[in-house]
């Protein structure tokens, strides 16, 4: 892998950039791999990367039905934070956040991790108590967060209206090292690093069936032929139930649409990420200047990647109320993705009823921020056939035992 640097750009600039090599190879599948990851989104590619980097398993294929990074990795609002309430969530999201800190350097590609800070606004007394609880939990969990008052909120977000007629801003939970990153670049950087390790990233290759023998995985059938493996990681947000069905089991998942939208670009207006859960909206400003906005999910099963417009209305209405000077900005584009919602709205990183098959799913609306931590934990699960401490609580067994990991309890939502 030729390294990226300012010097390399200068060198290439002089020859009209004709010397850049491919970021990742585009091979045909081999007959057999030590491990196959289905899904070349951020989670799948990170799983493959850490299989190689942490566990020395490099004979790996990442199979992708479409184009890599084309699912929720390339559709989310790029927020990174780890101010979760429950221990297992805080652990895996903080692991992810800390890996984002050095991802550009680790992978030699600028993913533009911008620890600009994330505020979750408290607009009711109930939310105040909920976020104060989270702040206490985070202090014990080693997650740096802080409860801040309305004046500090205003300093951080000058365009906010503190004393709206409906929900005054009573304060917020502030995570100074939360932020955003360039979502596509995260997938590309992992893909490039995996490819450099000799892994095969096979795009436009759909899985059509899963072969098992004696309760264990044997091979996958794909549109590019049959491929054998003893370890199969299903990392296919939005399609988890379908793949599980091929392997003969069901998941506690329903797939619904989640929408986001951006405004036209304007000059820097807001330096931090703001989330307002009472009114259901969150917003940051991209480096290009667009206000990047997200809201809640639709409530019905839907695989179309299109949501219902009334959710857009609700989200926009909330933001206009919170930031009245944004009313004359314009929505430039809206889109949708398919998110997998589990029975407790927390993810699944788990062994399955079929030997050698592992599932990483159900990140709901919180997937992007967890990519490196999820990949790290999933790689460990796949390599050792047993979850490590990061994944331990996220097994499928929790549903049977009634051991929920419920993040909604502190008035927070898992965006």
């Amino acid at each position, binding site marked *: 892998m030729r390294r990226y640097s300012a010097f390399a750009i200068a060198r290439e600039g002089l020859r009209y950039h004709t010397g850049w090599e491919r970021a990742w190879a585009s091979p045909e599948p081999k007959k057999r791999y030590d491990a196959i990851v289905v899904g070349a989104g951020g989670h799948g590619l990170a799983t493959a990367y850490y299989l190689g980097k942490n566990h020395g398993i490099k004979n790996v294929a990442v199979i992708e039905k479409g184009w890599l990074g084309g699912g929720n990795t390339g559709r989310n609002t790029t927020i990174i934070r780890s101010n979760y309430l429950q221990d297992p969530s805080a652990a895996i999201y903080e692991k992810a956040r800390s890996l984002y800190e050095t991802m550009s350097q680790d992978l030699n590609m600028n993913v533009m991790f911008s620890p600009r800070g994330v505020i979750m606004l408290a607009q009711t007394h109930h939310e105040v108590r909920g976020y104060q609880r989270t702040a206490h939990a985070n202090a014990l969990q080693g997650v740096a967060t802080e409860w801040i008052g309305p004046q500090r909120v205003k300093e951080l977000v000058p365009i906010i209206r503190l004393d709206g007629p409906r929900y005054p801003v009573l304060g917020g939970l502030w995570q100074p090292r939360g932020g955003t990153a360039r979502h596509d670049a995260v997938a*590309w950087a992992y893909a490039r690093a995996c490819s450099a390790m000799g892994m095969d990233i096979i795009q436009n290759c759909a899985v059509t069936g899963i072969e098992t023998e004696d309760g264990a995985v044997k091979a996958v059938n794909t549109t590019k032929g049959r491929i054998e493996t003893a370890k199969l990681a299903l990392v296919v947000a939005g399609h988890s139930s379908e793949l599980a069905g091929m392997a003969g089991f069901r998941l506690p998942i329903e797939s619904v649409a989640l929408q986001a939208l951006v405004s036209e670009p*304007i000059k820097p*207006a807001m330096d931090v990420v703001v989330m307002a859960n009472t009114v259901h909206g969150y917003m940051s400003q991209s480096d290009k200047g667009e206000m990047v906005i997200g809201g809640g999910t639709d409530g019905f099963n839907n695989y179309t990647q299109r949501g219902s*417009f009334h959710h857009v209305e609700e989200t926009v209405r909330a933001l206009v109320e919170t930031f009245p000077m944004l009313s004359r900005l314009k929505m430039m584009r*809206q889109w949708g993705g398919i998110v997998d919602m589990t029975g407790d709205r927390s993810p699944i990183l788990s062994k399955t009823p079929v030997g050698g098959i592992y599932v990483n799913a159900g990140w709901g609306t919180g997937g992007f921020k967890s990519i490196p931590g999820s990949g790290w934990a999933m790689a460990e699960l796949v390599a050792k056939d047993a979850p490590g401490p990061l994944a331990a609580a996220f097994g499928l067994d929790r549903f049977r035992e009634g051991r929920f990991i419920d993040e909604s309890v502190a008035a927070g939502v898992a965006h």
Partner: protein
Amino acid sequence: MSTRLESLGRLIDRSQPMTFTFNGRSFKGYAGDTLASALLGADQMMLGRSFKYHRPRGAVASGAEEPNALVGLGQGGRFEPDQRATTTEIFPGLVAKSQNHWPSLEYDIGAVNSLFARFLPAGFYYKTFMAPPAAWKTVFEPFIRQSAGLGAVPEEPDADRYEHLYHHADVAVVGGGVAGLAAAKAAAATGVKVLLLEQSAHWGGRAPVDGGEIDGMAAEDWVSASVAELEAAPNVTMRLRMQGFGVYDHGYLIAHERVGDHAPGEAAPRHRLWRIRAGRIVTATGALERPLAFAGNDVPGVMLASAMRDYLVNWGVAIGRRVVVVTNNDDAYRTALAFKSAGLDVAAVLDARASVISPLAQAAREAGISVLEGRGIGAVKGRNRVSGVLAVRQQGDGGAGEEIACDAVAMSGGWSPVVHLWSHCGGKLLWDEADAMFRPDPARAPSGADGAGFVLTAGSASGALTLAGGLADAHAAGKAAGRAMGGKASRKAAPKAGAEASQPIAPVWIMPEGAGPAKRAKMWLDFQNDVKVSDVQLAAREGYQSVEHTKRYTTLGMATDQGKLSNINGLAVLSQALSQPIPATGTTTFRPPYTPVSFGAIAGEAAGELFQPVRQTPIHAWHEAHHAHWEPVGHWRRPYAYLRGTETPADAVTREVVNTRENVGLLDASTLGKIVVKGPDAGRFLDMLYTGMMSTLPVGKCRYGLMCNENGFLIDDGVVARLDDDTWLCHTTTGGADRIHAHMEEWLQTEWWDWRVYTANLTEQYAQIAVVGPKARAVLEALGGMDVSREALPFMTWAEGELGGFPVRLFRISFSGELSYEIAVPASMGQALWDRLWQAGQTRGIMPYGTETLHVLRAEKGFIMIGDETDGTVIPQDLGLNWAISKKKDDYLGKRAQSRSFMASEDRWRLVGLETLDGSVIPDGAYVVAEGRNANGQRNMQGRVTSTYYSPTLKRGIAMGLVAHGPERMGEVVTIPTIGGPAIKAKIVDPVFYDKEGAKQDV
């Protein structure tokens, strides 16, 4: 020079001149002008700066597709960034500013980026700015953010209002050009209800500019006649200045009507969002001309040929006095001919096709225009303004050629149907080799609720680019849509236009085709985002081969025009780079909106006081008048406390608590849910709903109940009263009223539908007033009318009667531990009863109290609060509420779940009281720590604080919490860390802090 001519200008009214300012300078235009046409008419060619390199830019188009001419429009509360000058109608006093430059449009420091363009290719930022790690956030990103962005940030709240409108139509026709008119007429003729909308202020679209005859009339006259016909039709609704911007599932079309933009004022809403449910949607959205990719194609003065023609014919503006036309198809000859006939100079037509014999080219030649075949442009001379071109052989490398002096270049790379609305819900496209365009594939239409296609395309939006073909297509589409909606057969004939002979387009994606890297780095594809041919080729070389990868890597098509001009050219260049046919590359996804839509319009009327409903109790106004410090509880607002004089809320709470314990307090409890459950199976039903036994509750008595969901978690609590043999009244929490009513109905309707039970949510029928405290009885007795003695109305009973003349239901229940009555009265009399109680209490020290006092009172008594002690993960057993769980019942909702291993575990955190050793108040949300750390390095926890208050009664901090094995650890001291302070030591105690025997409430 671009100038306003004496002649032409069909859309302007020269008798109505108006003045406006641009960058502080005063300009003159006419009614009917767009901002772009007025500025161009005054030779203001440069209108903005590009996004990345800050290159000087002028308008390249004349409509919604414009990527360059964006301005900051208006001032103060009416300032809007990024508005397209090409679609902004001018009005007297309009104020506009150009964007993305400093200090001025003409001299922009940011233009230095342009000098380094060679080192700033697509995605350069992914390859650098990585060291040192902190520098991205602190140095590079701020610089990039400041340089990027386009418009200025609005500084004031919006001064205008917005609204929504729902509309229902059998057929909605989007686009009021001749195709839209023809489609609407055909649909209307079937008798169905038709809506026709047009984004601009004029009907007719391009046809009046392009010429031609329809049904023997000039296009313009046919348009007028058709509009008159449609206006007269009772089944047709027509709207101008309204764009159908998005098609959503099941025939949902959203349109954006610009009601007041062209005439700002106070009265009318600025925008109106139409939410249209249509049986069929006909998109007559036309086609967009494509630019050609030649070096220097972004210099101001290079414009789409059709746009140049529009400015000339519609607004009487000549973009140049001497024009070069460059094309690969016939249509651009119309521009050459229009200029020639307006008395302007056409230096040459450079046609990339090797030989051109079409009638339009012949006409140009006959008009004395030089047509150079097999030619293209190798370079554009000029920096801020075109001064000439280098005409080269299209098949060469552009090295040598002939310089032609000119002050404007009209380019045409062919036409692309506007397929956005067709595609929003999944309509598929096919590549039309003959016309070099993607067009809708009628066999793969987006399907609706009934499974049938619900979007049809009409005219050039279908790819029928000729006038005759387009009209025939549109008529057929309108008719088919009408028939599909049950319209009658119609013999209305399709409008007829003469057939035009034409010569096929020659696809040209790079001009000249052998251009080297230096030239390709100057061929713009996406003007606003500064994406060039070389960038797309770089993306392909680096493996970003999916069209989506190329888009995201280069930002092609991600500007405010969303690739209207750039996408097809870009994916064609990508296809060439990958040596694959264009259909194999495909397009990126078309997403709403077609053009950007104001957030204000999307929010509609829901701003300010209409943002969300505020639910009010019948006593709301009294609270307001008595200085209630409000707390939002769901959509309700409840008094948190009533402030007197200079009191803080905390002072007020202390006063209210003490007074209620010593005298008497008044609480507006109207928000509590009140659900009547009646029927022969009502008892059995409530036994399933509550953990306790309700069927055995005697008439006249009250019982506290808990409700769980099927996961076993506690979801609500409240007092149930048995009204008669088959009727119960269930009280819920404030937040629970609607939720629990829905929960009951869900189980009744979907699981136990054969049980004979009816429910009615009577929450708002009654005002409910709690009279609480040792003197409560005296207050009620002062009203008279009912025996409220302990004997007549013991604790946990209820009675009906007339209290002080009010028809009431009186409950002896207490959430405070004090003697307490809750009085339900018809809501319309709520205020009157409150007033009477208030009066009666004056001599007894009565004070109203709010929700915080309610909380403190209940916490002193160790009563749990849904939402504090519970958070969706807590089961009744955690809270020591086993006494409220019937052991006699086989089943209740949640019972099975509570037997699962984790829920039955002895290790769950359970409710206790926590008493700080120093009497201080534990902070909200604090945790009880245990020794050591877990496998993830987190401090081990063994409990958490669920409620914590200063108790004015006990004059110390009190708290409740859930602690592992808590009830077995009475007296043990635990550690509760605080943030930024010393850890607190607290003793585990009984959660009932006050009147443990319950003597005070049962008097």
